[in-house]
């Protein structure tokens, strides 16, 4: 990675830390402690299922909220506040700024997710009193959640490069919801004839397929994840994010600062 991208990325990370974004971990920790104590008392035999479902869903929701709420301001806030002027008047290319911002937020989310995962595993250990070989698949579920973050971060950055923060938030949330039902959309496209079916099929392939990246339930039930799925999901997330980032760069490259 070139040094300017790294500088912008580390500054974005520093901004998130100083703006107390990682404070969400306190709420998450309280949730995990509460859930672990409660589950230990009321559910017999399904503690693992409940803790994993609740914990991993919380990891996903907390991360998504951070990705969207920080991501939507990454570019637009810099334009509105005019902090961008002194950055772009240096030998920084516009694409470097976008990519640096992307890696900065992605890094924040990875660190945040790592700490939350430690919390989930801690809660799991508290209720089941042991760590099983099966628990390794929890890490795959977390990895898929991170892949979702990479995609949603790229999308929010894309919206942020041409839209206001509020509209960016609306677009990002809408895509998150639609993307979570991408498999259903594909199913609907297959049974719908004519133009509507074609449109649904087109939309199903354009929106991010978050449902394929969600293995929380199956992992919580003790199922394993196929290696092929890990490979395809990784490739999908990388290509999808790269394509969206390229779009953000194309838009931002043509944008005049007010």
């Amino acid at each position, binding site marked *: 990675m070139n040094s300017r991208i790294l500088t*912008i990325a580390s500054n974005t990370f520093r901004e998130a830390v100083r703006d107390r974004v990682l404070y969400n971990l306190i709420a998450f920790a309280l949730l995990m402690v509460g859930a672990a104590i409660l589950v230990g008392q009321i559910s017999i035999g399904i503690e693992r299922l409940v803790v994993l479902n609740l914990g991993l869903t919380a990891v996903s929701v907390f991360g998504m909220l951070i990705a969207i709420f920080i991501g939507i301001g990454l570019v637009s806030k810099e334009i509105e506040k005019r*902090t961008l*002027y002194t950055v772009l008047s*240096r030998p*920084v290319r516009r694409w470097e700024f976008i990519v640096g911002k992307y890696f900065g937020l992605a890094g924040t989310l990875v660190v945040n997710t790592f700490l939350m995962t430690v919390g989930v595993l801690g809660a799991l250990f508290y209720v089941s009193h042991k760590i099983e070989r099966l628990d390794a698949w929890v890490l795959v579920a977390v990895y898929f959640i991170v892949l979702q973050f990479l995609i949603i971060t790229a999308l929010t950055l894309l919206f942020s490069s041409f839209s206001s923060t509020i509209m960016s938030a609306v677009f990002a949330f809408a895509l998150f919801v639609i993307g979570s039902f991408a498999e259903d959309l594909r199913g609907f496209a297959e049974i719908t004839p004519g133009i509507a079916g074609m449109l649904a099929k087109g939309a199903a392939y354009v929106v991010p397929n978050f449902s394929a990246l969600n293995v929380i339930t199956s992992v919580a039930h003790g199922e394993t994840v196929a290696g092929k799925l890990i490979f395809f999901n990784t490739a999908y997330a990388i290509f999808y994010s790269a394509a969206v980032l390229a779009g953000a760069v194309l838009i931002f490259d043509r944008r005049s*600062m007010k």
Partner: protein
Amino acid sequence: MSVIEIAGLEKTYSTGFFRKTKKFALRPLELRVEQGEIFGYLGPNGAGKTTTLKMLMGLVFPSGGSARILGMDINDSKVKSRIGFLPEHPYFYDYLTGRELLDYYGQLSGVPSKQRRERVESLLHRVGLSDSAGTQLRKYSKGMLQRVGIAQALLHDPEVVFLDEPMSGLDPIGRREVRDLMEQLKKEGKTVFFSTHILSDAEALCDRVAILFQGELLRVGAVADLTANVQGKVEVTWSGATVPPSIRALGVECHITSDTARIVIDEQKQDAAVDALRAANLRMISLVPVRATLEDYFVQQLKTSRKAMAVSA
């Protein structure tokens, strides 16, 4: 050698519902700034000064024309490591301290680590922020932000410095310090291009100035050359707090104190004023020519342009 060459640079905006009406933010601009000079870019608010600077910095894309800085096209990112820029009313990342901010910009400008540390400390000292270097920018006053803005513009030791309203937000001492700093930059052989609407600053500092009005360049030249042809004025002072009717008839404003009165009139009217005082048996204390200032010239130019626009409309 010209370090800034602007050839036909222009900016238009489309307005109206169908965006068919074109509005000029900057009419085709031809301008050259020579190496080592302090160049003042003057104009009232909305004249197009900031638009020009934004285009030179690559923040706004021109609608036409081209510009070169240090012989390189403004779109060439290499040129940006050799220029410094202070935007108008600068905003910075307020979660950073002054020292961190300068270090960040130093990294972006590619200043090597050891040299960067030295430059950061020396510039913090130069702009008088050494004591607040560890304070987050959200706690800085407007004047302190302006100072840190100037420091970031000079951090990578640029050859050409662009300052957009550098005196804005500074108290009289701060303004004097910035003036001294600009003169120091000139002594170091750097070129300073700064925009302002405070004419006394430009008059005191600039080798040459350009006057911009409603997106159009009116004049370029040395301050002395520009003001040479401005109609001269004289200040007449006499004892006694009375003003003869014939003086009032000249249509000038009289400034009366307890025992003297004073008027400023055009040179051509000075004989009439002296005659009027003699006829009224008032003792003249002084008759002093008033040197034409850049402000006089500026106001005259703006009036002429407004009249010309009114006629053409």
